[in-house]
């Protein structure tokens, strides 16, 4: 009976050593530290004086 169970058991997945991978995270973008918009100026005096930084899209 035990042998039969062994035969029915799916093949054991091969062990893969855990691996640490690094992926990019851009803190200055992720924390919304700077305004990217440039179209608020007409109605917002604050925008005209901001030191806006554009990081592209």
């Amino acid at each position, binding site marked *: 009976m035990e042998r039969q169970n062994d035969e029915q058991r799916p093949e054991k997945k091969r062990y893969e050593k855990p691996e640490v991978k690094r992926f990019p995270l851009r803190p200055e973008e*992720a924390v919304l530290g*700077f305004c*990217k918009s440039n179209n*608020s100026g007409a109605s917002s005096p604050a925008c005209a004086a901001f030191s806006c930084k554009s990081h592209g899209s």
Partner: protein
Amino acid sequence: MRLQIAGLTIAVSSSDPSITLTVDAPSSKFLVDGGGPADVELTAERVASMPAPSDALIFDSGGTWALFDDGGRFRIDCKAPSFGDAPYKIAFFDRDYSAGRVLLRADVFEGPAEVLQYPIDELLVGNLLARGRGVELHCCGIIGEDGRGRLFVGQSGAGKTTTARLWMANREGIEIVSDDRVVVRDAGGEWRMYGTPWHGEAELASPASAPLAAIYLLQQASATRVVDISRATAAARLFGCTFPLFYDGGALAFTVDCIGRITGDVPVRVLEFTPDVSAIEAVS
């Protein structure tokens, strides 16, 4: 004034008759009529001087804003070198971000007041989403002529606006919901993507939404092809294109879990692409 962004309603009011509430052009597409309960109720005041600084810093963005613990509520100070040391705007929020009060410095905000102007609008929505509601991704969102949504994810310079422009030039009957920021939420067992006012270089923003059919991680290459990746890699790369609340463990845990669930339900692949029509055909 009421805005609805990703299904979240933000109501802004002021008892000061000298304050004319307004929003920028992209946000104006998200204005809605009607009354009833909102997810957030905000009031605005114009003040001659700002309250004393708080010494209970929670998080400094390193840029315009910093978050403080203000007793039973949060306080966000917004500063710019042009306006001296004092904040030009301070927002107080309840702990669940369901109510808030925004103080505008009178010498800065003399005309119509954009109360939700950067960074308040996006910080507010980000905090609401991270409390069990969804996640904002750095991506371009496109609704195809079949009504299905596709996200093209990447950090700055990855090609989000390029992708949006390609689709606009080569496909009819599509809608770009944003070329920079899109919200994804679980809408009753179905992942749905929502446009936001926060756009990229092409200034594309729409309040439209659609069922999310596929996610592509943008990667510029010499030839176009779609590459399968593991779910773990997909989750890690997607997380790198969120706007995590690093200072809030519960919010961070929810965002990680949300990304994990999305990668289990929605196909996530890498789109290696050259900026031509092949980048559309590969995912159509």
